């Protein structure tokens, strides 16, 4: 027998008779949902990192304090990437008798490669932001663009001449948005943007000048990765690569959490797909028992029956998966269209990877979960043709489902792209299946044992649950798993969004004031009061450099870690405080008590401690303005850098640092309509360094907002897959139910009685799955939040209520819709069909 040909023919016949609709539907929607998530995630991830890259002005930046080798540019150009370079350094700018220290940035054509530079010609005017536009290019040779603060301090107008070193340059525009503005020493103070061509004329580039050289690179993500790996071994000391993640910790955290969430959503859709396919495959085999028995009776060998259906499933799996992938492609395109209003960057075309992944996942899931019932079909006893009560043996169920779970496990690790996250979710689901199964059986048994005491329709409802105990447990577990995936996602999503909102509230500090002197504290307080601005907390700041650790002199160049080198070469900001800040968390040691005032101890930030290899109990010695200061590390702190508040690497108790030269620092929120106040502030306190992070915060908030939208969308799609599971679950026992209804109705049961009995049955089933889902989601939500996403966990009673409510209402509604035909078709039709 040519099994393949016969299989094709049988497939066609099954298809024609509508036997495969549920399975195909489940497969297409599952694969479709999964690939939509896959494609979309792929594109959103690319888009998000590109969006993030706007904050860097490029996809990749090489930074050095020495001129960069031409080889880097050469290699980037060879790969077909775009390049541009910039130099940043502090210098004095003079206008007439007035002068000021500014951060100069000299750029070459093409800058910025990502994001946009916006300028205005209304220099120094309050309304300047409203009339700004995208800068087409960079300042022309001989002209400069000035930052808002510089314009205010020197009262600049368009056409004014300023002296930059030996060069005299014309003020042409004011910068309103600089994409790669970042907090750092060189950026302190007002900004001046000049054309790199004018640099030699200024005479400012000399041996020993403090200059930061940057090479900006942009282009195809794959090529950027290639260049990155080429660069890594070729960089010399003092040179480092900056991607968005290296440069902006707050964006890094947001992106990484969003990516993890999207992986989770993808994994949830895999679980939903598996549940739907397992249920649909089970129904398929149940309906094919008789056919197999007849074929065995007509002489088909066991393996022939197996191959017949195996080919069946492979062909079906391939076709449905491809269709699912195409659906996914279409759906994500629609999604992108919808999102285009929000995502300002052009979304890159997705890679083909989700397509291949979708087909493989579809096939693996189908075979993984359809194989166990298939292996059982192979051994349907031929005697079933004489004795219909002889069912299927479940000999292969355990090994078979183990195979399915194994396949699912591999898919999980693959889809998660993060072993820890994948393993925790997978273990969660496996434990859940075992616990749900056992609990389901016990609960059904308990509930059924009271059926003799129940009256009327309850009795029949309970009896039905018990009669279909196995099916009921399978249905409740599958539904429970699906709902659990959805609830977990809901829980995590809520936590994630809330966490971001708390991290960056709309009134997050957007201005830093540095270099406040002690005698200015009082006048500053009054200034804030006059201008109706909330009094911010002011922190003392002492600058010092680490000279020795535990008595050994520190040699920065002996450290292999680039960060350690940088940290040890420059001056640290030290501060003192009585209480620990709310965005700080002690992870080792203890914060001091008030009686420890004056004790030479300090609390060190975790990242710094790790980089320079310092642990609890070590003694650090600092050079503070020529004096020596030593203190023992008494605690290690974790600092939430996403908060944009003032934070310090090293903090001591009060009473020891006060004797050293101290300045103060503060951060505060200035609403956009009060920006004019900044000019007054700069005039009143000319020695202040003002750092404006409003632009950065707006950009970060924009990125987070887009990540949020993306997450909401992906969630919606996962929800749709959940509906398919519900459909597959209800339909899996539909045949039996229709047959029973026919018998009941023949025996005189009224429609109302039947409906009540089913409502009881479905409600118990839904209640069980809701209970399982809430249990699982609470546990899994805790594990994922705590260990994978580093989010604080809070117990959520709503999850239990929602789980039970959605379970009961959803299953009852779907169940009644699914079985309504049993109430309308004449019993004789059903009975004749079955016989």
């Amino acid at each position: 027998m040519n099994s393949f040909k016969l299989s094709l023919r049988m497939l066609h016949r099954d298809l024609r008779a509508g036997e495969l609709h549920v399975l195909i539907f489940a497969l297409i929607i599952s694969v479709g949902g999964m690939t939509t998530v896959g494609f979309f995630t792929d594109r959103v991830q690319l888009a998000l990192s590109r969006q993030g890259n706007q904050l860097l002005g490029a996809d990749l930046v090489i930074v050095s304090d020495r001129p960069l080798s031409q080889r880097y540019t050469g290699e980037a150009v060879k790969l077909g990437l775009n390049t541009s370079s910039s130099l940043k350094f502090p210098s004095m700018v003079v206008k007439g008798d007035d002068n000021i220290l500014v951060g100069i940035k000299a750029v070459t054509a093409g800058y910025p490669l990502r994001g946009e530079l916006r300028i205005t010609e209304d220099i120094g005017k309050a309304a300047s932001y409203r009339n700004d536009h995208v800068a087409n290019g960079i300042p022309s040779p001989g002209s400069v663009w000035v930052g808002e603060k510089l314009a205010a301090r020197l009262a600049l107008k368009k056409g004014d001449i300023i002296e930059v070193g030996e060069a005299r340059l014309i003020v042409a525009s004011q910068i309103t948005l600089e994409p790669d503005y970042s907090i750092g020493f060189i950026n302190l103070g007002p900004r001046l943007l000049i054309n790199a061509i004018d640099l030699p004329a200024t005479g400012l580039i000399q041996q020993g000048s403090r200059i930061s050289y940057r090479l900006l690179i942009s282009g195809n993500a794959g090529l950027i990765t290639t260049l990155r790996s080429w660069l890594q071994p070729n960089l010399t000391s003092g040179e480092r690569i900056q991607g968005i993640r290296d440069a902006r910790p707050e964006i890094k955290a947001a992106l990484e959490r969003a990516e993890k969430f999207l992986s989770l959503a993808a994994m949830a859709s895999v679980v939903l797909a598996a549940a739907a396919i397992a249920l649909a495959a089970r129904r398929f085999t149940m309906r094919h028992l008789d056919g197999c028995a007849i074929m065995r009776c007509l002489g088909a060998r066991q393996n022939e029956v197996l191959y017949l259906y195996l080919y069946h499933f492979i062909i079906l799996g391939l076709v449905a998966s491809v269709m699912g992938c195409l659906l996914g492609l279409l759906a994500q395109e629609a999604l992108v269209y919808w999102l285009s209003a929000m995502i300002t960057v052009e979304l890159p075309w997705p890679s083909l990877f989700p397509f291949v992944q979708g087909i493989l996942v579809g096939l693996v899931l189908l075979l993984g979960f359809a194989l166990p019932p298939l292996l059982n079909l192979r051994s349907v006893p031929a005697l079933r043709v004489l004795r219909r009560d002889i069912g299927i043996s479940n000999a292969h169920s355990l090994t078979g489902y183990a195979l399915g779970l194994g396949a699912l496990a591999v898919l999980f690790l693959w889809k998660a792209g993060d072993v820890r996250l994948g393993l925790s979710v997978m273990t969660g689901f496996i434990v859940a299946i075992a616990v749900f199964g056992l609990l389901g059986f016990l609960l059904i048994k308990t509930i059924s044992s009271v059926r003799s005491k129940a009256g009327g329709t309850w009795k029949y409802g309970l009896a039905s649950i018990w009669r279909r105990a196995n099916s009921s447990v399978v249905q409740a577990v599958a539904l429970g798993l699906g709902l659990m995936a959805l609830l977990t996602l809901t829980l995590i999503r809520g936590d994630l969004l809330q966490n971001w909102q708390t991290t960056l509230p709309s009134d997050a500090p957007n201005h830093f004031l540095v270099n406040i002197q002690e005698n200015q504290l009082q006048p500053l307080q009054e200034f804030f009061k006059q201008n109706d601005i909330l009094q911010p907390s002011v922190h003392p700041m002492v600058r010092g450099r680490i000279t020795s650790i535990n008595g050994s002199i520190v040699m920065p160049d002996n450290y292999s870690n680039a960060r350690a080198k940088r940290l040890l070469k420059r001056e640290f900001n030290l501060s003192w405080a009585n209480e620990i800040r709310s965005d700080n968390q002690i992870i080792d040691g203890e914060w001091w008590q008030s009686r420890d005032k004056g004790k030479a101890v300090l609390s060190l930030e975790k990242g710094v401690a790790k980089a320079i290899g310092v642990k609890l109990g070590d003694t650090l010695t600092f050079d503070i303005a020529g004096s020596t200061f030593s203190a023992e590390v008494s605690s290690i702190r974790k600092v939430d850098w996403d908060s944009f508040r003032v934070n310090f690497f090293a903090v001591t108790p009060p009473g020891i640092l006060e004797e050293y030269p101290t300045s103060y620092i503060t951060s505060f929120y200035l609403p956009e309509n009060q920006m004019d106040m900044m000019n007054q502030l700069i005039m009143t306190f000319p020695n202040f360094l003002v750092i404006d992070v409003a632009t950065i915060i707006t950009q970060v908030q924009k990125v987070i907002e887009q990540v949020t939208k993306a997450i909401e969308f992906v969630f919606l799609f996962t929800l749709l897959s959940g509906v398919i599971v519900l459909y597959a679950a209800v339909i899996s026992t539909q045949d039996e139910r229709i047959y029973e209804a026919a018998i009941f109705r023949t025996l005189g049961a009224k429609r109302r009685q039947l409906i009540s009995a089913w409502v009881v049955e479905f409600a118990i089933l839904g209640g069980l799955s809701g209970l399982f889902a809430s249990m699982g989601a609470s546990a899994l939500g805790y594990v994922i939040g705590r260990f994978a996403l580093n989010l604080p966990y809070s117990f959520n009673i709503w999850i239990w209520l929602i789980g039970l409510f959605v379970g009961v209402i959803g299953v009852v509604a779907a169940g009644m819709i699914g079985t309504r035909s049993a109430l309308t078709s004449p019993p004789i039709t059903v009975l004749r069909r079955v016989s």
Partner: protein
Amino acid sequence: MTDNLIIKPIVQAISLTKHVKSSDTQLTILQDINLEVSIGEAVSIVGASGSGKSTLLGLLAGLDIPSSGKVYLNGEDIFSLSEDGRAELRGRLLGFVFQSFQLLPVLTAIENVMLPLELTGVSNARKIALELLGHVGLEARVNHYPKQLSGGEQQRVAIARAYVTHPKLLLADEPTGNLDSSTGNQIVDLMFELNRERGTTLILVTHDETISSRCTRQIKLVGGKIED
């Protein structure tokens, strides 16, 4: 008698016994059955409900395994064969007609008849099936699904399917059990007609005396034993 000695029996059951375990007791369904059926014979197995008729038929077809005893089909000891060996033997030698027709609901009438031929890879299955459906008077219904056919029509399709492989032995389990007497008679007529035409041996399980009397020999089962 001399002829019977020369003609090899197509079915031979020796000391066939079947017990089933029911909770803690053991029920004997068939006990020490010995029978021979020769080629061309039409044998009916009769008896009350629960006398073991269907069990005996299942054992003779190798659909079930006996507790002890042997069955030879066309000279082959079927229980020395594997499950697949027996399936192959069934495909080669046997045809079945059941009380509940056992048509595949997803296949049309002609596809149901074609199925045994397709399983053995016969190339012109459609043509052969079509001829036979014509023979049983269903040429106008070939593309109908079982649920669109009456009981009698469904049984005709089942008979066509049983004869399409030219079986040496046809086993029928209460073929008229689900039909009214007039339709039942037509079905039995059809079976006997095809049986004669094709020289098939027939073993028929029934509790209908009239049908049984049309067979060449009757075997009566009482409490799992052949009544002499």
